[in-house]
């Protein structure tokens, strides 16, 4: 106790110191490039101290490992409880030896400590490898090598291609003349695209180490913050007398962890180092997710703790009542020692503690060990599952945490990403529509062209000269308006988009697969984008001529604008602005063009589930361009509200467009996605699709994946509707619709007509959602929008949220999670934008998709394909839940059976804390006699064949809402345990009552009494488990019968020898003598039968009178099944069961 208090104190001091250090911080920091002081005239800066570039991910050091690890471990309530029990046993005179509780506890603690120590050692090793790795630093005009950890803020670092940046750097110059470099940030945010970073104009010319060494500049920038995409700073370059000041933004900042690509080398200056890099700050400590079962377990634990304490209190009180008579307290035959006579008040407390110790086995250490082992070992079945292996990817399911296995069986809400999760994220250019003419190239898959693909199929071929010009302009626009890069090599880190076509071995690389599909589609239509060279985009046109366009500005894509633009100058000197984006963001900005036809086409395509984009252009006069440049530079120089200003500038530039046409790209559904969703629906889960895509496309995907069926009545909650009516009205109208139906449905259900059941689907978009979620300001009425919305959602079987920002995804999950039913949520996704919801949901599942590994890394489980979710939930989740709930209940049950007789015995031994069982039995009961059967049960049990579970998703409803760990069931188990204990104890009591039961007239003593009870106990609890086992493999037989045999053999051995190391021989021949008596055998059989009888009767009656779906199917299976091999055939034959709700 003292130790732990000391730890607490030390750590709190440590944290206080840290906090104090943080408060000293200043808002900005100043970095001297190359550690050169600014010229004397410059503003005086406060020199700050920066940490070195050491990365520390390890938890412990060599010195603090033991105290810190012990502290962490004993912070767990259970461990602390066992420690207290152990200490009590050490300090006071207790009925059982400290070994009985100390041994298991220290075993657990040491194993955990070794495991954690080993993991930390690995982290230390990884840290050391990172910290020791050599980086190149410019010092005194020369490149020298340095350990990474010795880097300091202000160092100028030299990084070569394919190296990753050792800390956060401001790009000074690169091998490219334009001062740009390409970087992939796959390991940071999962985006595998190559991003372009820029050097400041003034420094980009310094290209050698000597030159770089001459840079005399300081950088002012904000203190490190975790947002990867936000950075503000200023560089002051002293070139002459007047310092030049330039603003710095995130496009100048190279982040630690990102990798230099396609660029020979760069120079950069370190501004954030070590634990202050954005990567380190961004490391989210994965919050410990706890499963519902664990929560129930802890609740039960509290109940048992109360039972334990009350038992001890009752016994202590009764003890003092009983021994108030001095002749009972100290009869002549049983004197006390001097010390026992003294200290009356303290004695009462130690008596209480002694009772606690005597009954402490009711909360067994072994339960925690067994649960941990079950989870750990059980998770291997997920990894081993052949059906969740994907041949194509060569990947199998990954378990990142085994703590949530059973939660997979409890899922009520599934939040799925669309692109890459439901769909393959394998874009295919389908068609384009120019002024109402539709062009369909032959099948082009990403990077693969089907043989014989040539020519253009023109549906409407009547292009006049003007139309032809527009058509070519459209193709050029698509060739120019993108951020695709061309990679000339075979291998690229990240994702490959090969264009294996003859001799050309170049790839198109982009963060958006749509763009790649579009550029490739254009290639099929005759316009090939070649490369971007020296600010010139080169296009190979239909006549095999190379056209060059000077790329002037890129107005990058963002999810708010949902469009991007480029400004180019053609070789003839004309200036164009090409804009590409979602229809909703383009149409309002279009002034002319064949809007009607294109709009119709776009809508048609969207309904078919295609991803559509509109293309528009605008011709710019040189004056307009000047104006544009002015706008942009002004916005970009701004320090404060740069993002806002840039957005405003873009808004001003992208207007008065002329519509050219639209494109359609298909993203095919993943294999069996529809089947999976249908199964999830049948299993009672609500499936929500959260996507950034537009409503029409997303809705089409939902129809295709059977999330919405024909019969589904769609409720829309979109900006379009809220524009017409107020949000308030729409919400109330929808809720009325749903509730009216709900009301009529429940009436139907009562009259038995419930099979006719209309389900609702809701579509909501991001903007409306944020309006719903916004906290109310004006009137209290709007405060419950959220409630109404939840109410509507609750009654919808499927919800589609489109146009969602990544953060909104997490918000939705959080909202559902915290709604009043507290449902269990599961989020599944493949991209970096799904990470937030994966982390937020109870269970996060990553798909090993194309968008990097970020999702997989942050998930709890990762599967190769969406279809594997079905087996994961319906089979594995179901099994794990069944298994662990039985494990938990059984553990409490068997310990009630174990300890309650001890409690009863106190009434017959003068409340003297006399144990009923021998020490060996007390210690080994949970460790060896009854541990393996339940562990193996919890690994092997299959109450129903897995084929049936997969075929009958409705079975999943049987275990919904933690149904096997509800209080009634817990009470049933506990009552059963108490009943068994009473049967065992009083059975033995009446057998021993003032008579003999040997045929030679000799008498048995108290140890025989305990052994009799214990024998009945071990057999009863083992048989009880045997009765619950539905799946008897040879392992189960071996373990169940084996542990009974072990008990008998152990007892024979334990009583068969005078053990020289023991100071008592109380068990000598007790077991054998007991077995030599006929009535002992008879009573063992009788008591086991009587103990098991009520449970068997309950099982049989319930099954006969109120069978669950599970039980019906079990029975049917046995009827159909004549041999084990038939089970496979059965799964194909049996018709789908119609479940009638009770």
């Amino acid at each position, binding site marked *: 106790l003292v130790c732990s208090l000391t730890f607490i104190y030390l750590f709190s001091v440590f944290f206080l110191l840290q906090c104090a250090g943080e408060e000293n911080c200043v808002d900005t920091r100043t970095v001297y490039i190359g550690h050169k002081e600014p010229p004397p005239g410059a503003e005086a800066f406060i020199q700050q101290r920066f940490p070195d570039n050491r990365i520390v991910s390890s938890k412990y050091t060599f010195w603090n490992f033991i105290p810190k690890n012990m502290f962490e471990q004993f912070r767990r309530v259970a461990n602390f409880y066992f420690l207290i029990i152990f200490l009590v046993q050490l300090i006071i005179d207790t009925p059982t030896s400290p070994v009985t509780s100390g041994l298991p506890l220290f075993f657990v603690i040491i194993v955990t400590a070794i495991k954690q120590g080993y993991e930390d050692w690995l982290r230390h090793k990884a840290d050391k490898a990172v910290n020791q790795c050599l980086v190149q630093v410019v010092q005194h005009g020369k490149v020298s090598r340095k350990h990474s950890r010795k880097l300091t803020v202000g160092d100028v670092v030299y990084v070569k291609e394919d190296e990753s940046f050792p800390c956060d750097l401001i790009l000074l110059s690169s091998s490219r003349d334009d001062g740009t470099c390409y970087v992939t940030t796959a390991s940071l945010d999962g985006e595998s695209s190559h991003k372009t970073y820029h050097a400041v104009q003034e420094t980009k010319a310094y290209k050698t180490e000597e030159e770089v060494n001459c840079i005399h500049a300081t950088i002012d920038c904000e203190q490190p913050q975790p947002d990867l995409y936000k950075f503000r700073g200023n560089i002051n370059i002293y070139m002459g007398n007047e310092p030049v000041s330039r603003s710095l933004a995130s496009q100048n900042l190279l982040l630690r962890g990102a990798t230099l690509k396609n660029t020979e080398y760069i120079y950069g200056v370190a501004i954030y180092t070590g634990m202050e890099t954005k990567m380190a700050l961004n490391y989210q*400590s994965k919050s410990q997710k706890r499963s519902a079962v664990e929560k129930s377990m802890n609740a039960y634990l509290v109940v048992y703790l109360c039972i334990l304490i009350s038992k001890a209190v009752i016994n202590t009180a009764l003890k003092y009542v009983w021994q108030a008579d001095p002749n009972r307290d100290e009869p002549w035959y049983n004197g006390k020692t001097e010390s026992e006579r003294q200290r009356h008040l303290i004695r009462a407390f130690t008596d209480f503690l002694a009772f606690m110790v005597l009954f402490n086995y009711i909360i067994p250490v072994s339960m925690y060990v067994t649960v941990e082992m079950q989870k750990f070992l059980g998770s291997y079945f997920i990894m081993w599952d052949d059906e969740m292996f994907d041949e194509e990817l060569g990947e199998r399911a990954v378990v990142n945490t085994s703590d949530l296995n059973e939660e997979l069986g409890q899922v009520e809400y599934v939040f799925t990403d669309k692109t890459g999760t439901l769909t393959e994220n394998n874009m295919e250019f389908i068609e384009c529509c120019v002024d109402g003419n539709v062009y369909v190239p032959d099948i082009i898959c990403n990077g693969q062209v089907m043989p014989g693909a040539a020519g253009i199929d023109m549906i409407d071929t009547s292009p006049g000269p003007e139309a032809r010009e527009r058509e070519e302009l459209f193709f050029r626009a698509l060739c120019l308006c993108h951020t695709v890069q061309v990679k000339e090599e075979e291998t690229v880190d990240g994702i490959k988009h090969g264009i294996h076509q003859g001799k050309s071995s170049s790839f198109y690389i982009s963060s958006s697969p749509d763009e790649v599909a579009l550029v490739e589609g254009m290639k099929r239509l005759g316009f090939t984008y070649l490369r971007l060279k020296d600010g010139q985009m080169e296009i190979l046109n239909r006549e095999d001529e190379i056209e060059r366009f000077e790329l002037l500005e890129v107005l990058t894509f963002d999810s708010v604008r949902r469009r991007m633009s480029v400004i180019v100058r053609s070789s003839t000197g004309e200036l164009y602005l090409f804009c590409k984006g979602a229809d909703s963001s383009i149409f309002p900005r279009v002034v002319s063009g064949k809007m009607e036809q294109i709009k119709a086409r776009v809508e048609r395509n969207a309904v078919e589930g295609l991803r559509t984009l509109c293309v528009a252009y605008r011709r710019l006069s040189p004056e307009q361009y000047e104006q544009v440049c002015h706008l942009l530079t002004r916005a970009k120089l701004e320090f404060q509200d740069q993002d806002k200003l840039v957005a405003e500038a873009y808004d001003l530039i992208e207007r008065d467009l002329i519509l050219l046409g639209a494109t359609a790209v298909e993203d095919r559904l993943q294999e069996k996605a529809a089947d999976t969703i249908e199964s999830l629906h049948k299993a009672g889960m609500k499936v929500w699709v959260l996507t950034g895509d537009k409503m029409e496309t997303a809705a089409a995907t939902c129809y295709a994946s059977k999330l919405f069926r024909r019969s589904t009545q769609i409720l829309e909650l979109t900006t379009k509707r809220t524009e017409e009516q107020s949000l308030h009205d729409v919400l109330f109208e929808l809720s009325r619709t749903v509730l009216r139906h709900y009301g009529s449905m429940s009436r139907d259900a009562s009259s038995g007509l419930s099979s006719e059941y209309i389900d609702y689907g809701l579509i909501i978009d991001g903007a409306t959602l944020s309006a719903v979620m916004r906290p109310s300001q004006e009137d209290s009425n709007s405060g419950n929008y959220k409630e109404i919305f939840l109410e509507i959602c609750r009654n919808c079987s499927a919800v589609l949220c489109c146009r969602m920002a990544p953060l909104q995804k997490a918000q939705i999950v959080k909202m559902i999670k915290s709604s009043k039913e507290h449902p269990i949520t599961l989020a599944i996704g493949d991209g970096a934008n799904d990470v937030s919801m994966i982390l937020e949901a109870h269970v996060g599942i990553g798909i090993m998709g194309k968008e990097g590994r970020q999702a997989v890394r942050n998930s709890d489980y990762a599967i190769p394909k969406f279809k594997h979710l079905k087996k994961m939930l319906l089979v594995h989740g179901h099994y794990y839940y069944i298994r662990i709930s039985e494990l938990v209940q059984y553990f409490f049950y068997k310990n009630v059976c174990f300890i309650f007789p001890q409690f009863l015995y106190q009434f017959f031994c003068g409340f003297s804390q006399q144990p009923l069982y021998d020490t060996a039995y007390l210690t080994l009961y949970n460790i060896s006699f009854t541990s393996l059967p339940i562990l193996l049960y919890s690994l092997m049990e299959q109450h129903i064949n897995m084929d049936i579970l997969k075929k009958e998703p409705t079975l999943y409803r049987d275990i919904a809402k933690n149904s096997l760990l509800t209080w009634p069931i817990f009470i049933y188990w506990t009552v059963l345990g108490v009943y068994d204990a009473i049967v065992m104890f009083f059975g033995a009591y009446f057998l021993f009552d003032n008579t003999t039961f040997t045929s030679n007239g000799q008498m048995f003593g108290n140890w025989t009494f305990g052994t009799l009870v214990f024998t009945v106990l071990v057999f009863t609890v083992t048989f009880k488990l045997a009765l619950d086992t539905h799946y008897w493999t040879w392992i189960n037989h071996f373990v169940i019968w084996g542990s009974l045999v072990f008990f008998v053999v152990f007892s024979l051995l334990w009583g068969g020898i005078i053990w020289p190391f023991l100071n008592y021989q109380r068990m000598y021949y007790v077991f054998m003598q007991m077995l030599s008596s006929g009535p002992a055998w008879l009573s063992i059989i009788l008591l086991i039968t009587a103990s098991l009888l009520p449970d068997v009767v309950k099982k049989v009656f319930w099954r*006969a009178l109120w069978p669950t779906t599970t039980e019906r199917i079990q029975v049917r299976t046995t009827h159909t099944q004549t041999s084990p091999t038939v089970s496979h055939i059965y799964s194909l034959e049996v018709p789908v069961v119609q479940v009638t709700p009770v």
Partner: protein
Amino acid sequence: MMASSYNAKEEDGHHSGSSTHGGTGAPKNKKPDNTAFKQQRLPAWQPILTAGTVLPAFFVIGLIFIPIGIGLYVTSNNIKEYEVDYTGVEPNSPCYDCANSFTWNSTTPCVCTVNFTLTQPFESNVYMYYGLSNFYQNHRRYVKSRDDSQLNGVQSSLTNPSKECKPYLTNPETKLPIAPCGAIANSLFNDTLELYYSQPDGNTSKVTLVKRGIAWYTDKNVKFRNPGNDKDNLTERFKGTAKPVNWLKPVYELDPSDPENNGFINEDFIVWMRTAALPTFRKLYRIIQKKPDSTPTLASGKYVLKITYNYPVRSFDGRKRMILSTISWMGGKNPFLGIAYITVGSICFFLGVVLLIIHQKYDTRSNSADIPN
């Protein structure tokens, strides 16, 4: 706190750290083994407890248990048992004076006699027990107050007994270690019971009480041993030890007539040392061997029990009894087992009938109901 995913080299997403198990370092071919165990498809027996399957078991249990129960009950009823309470609580009871005049250091033993009549003859071997009530031999302080290695004849423990024996560890005056030490040994039951048969002709004859064979064989021969060399005098072997405070004579004088029944291996002592499970208990005292001829071991008639009253129980409201009992294969008189067997058997049988009805009514119906075709 912070995981290993700091490592910037981990671009391909392979974890190197703590967060995964199994997946780490997997060989290139990640395809799982297609074994029955790993795919959870081990062949298995899948029994289900339904009314149909349990029904026969219930009837069988009922049909087996009820006859056993009847057998046990009849056997138990055939056992003859006679109990004499000689505590001496009531003023008119024969041992009242002895009970009241008890003092610890009286030298002259108080003797009282109790007359009783057996209405039925006792056949076969008759076992004589003494019974104590309200005597907590199972009190924790009492149970642990012994030294098994001393009783096993270990020399070092004889002179240096375990601390558990406190406060009966050493003699308070001489400071010599007590042998046998501890509360159990100290409170050895030391009443002497003798049985006389008042023949119809007026003569009384002493009934022969055998004092061997009352303790467990293993206790007598293995667990309990006298210390020292067998050749030496027993008194010599216990030299340097004191007798328990409440004993009248030292351990080596428990049965001077029989060296095989003296010292620690005295059977009365061994029987006492096996602590009883419950506060009301009986312990085997003597055996009355059946007679070679066909006459009953104890004929019906008048008997006299002569008690040397040494053992005080009044202070803790205890009771002392003498029990005569015959024994069957299932031990002494105890109707519990028989009744319990009959009860459980009947319940099983009854449940079997109920289940049969349920099985007929519900099981078949519910099964056919949800298969539409």
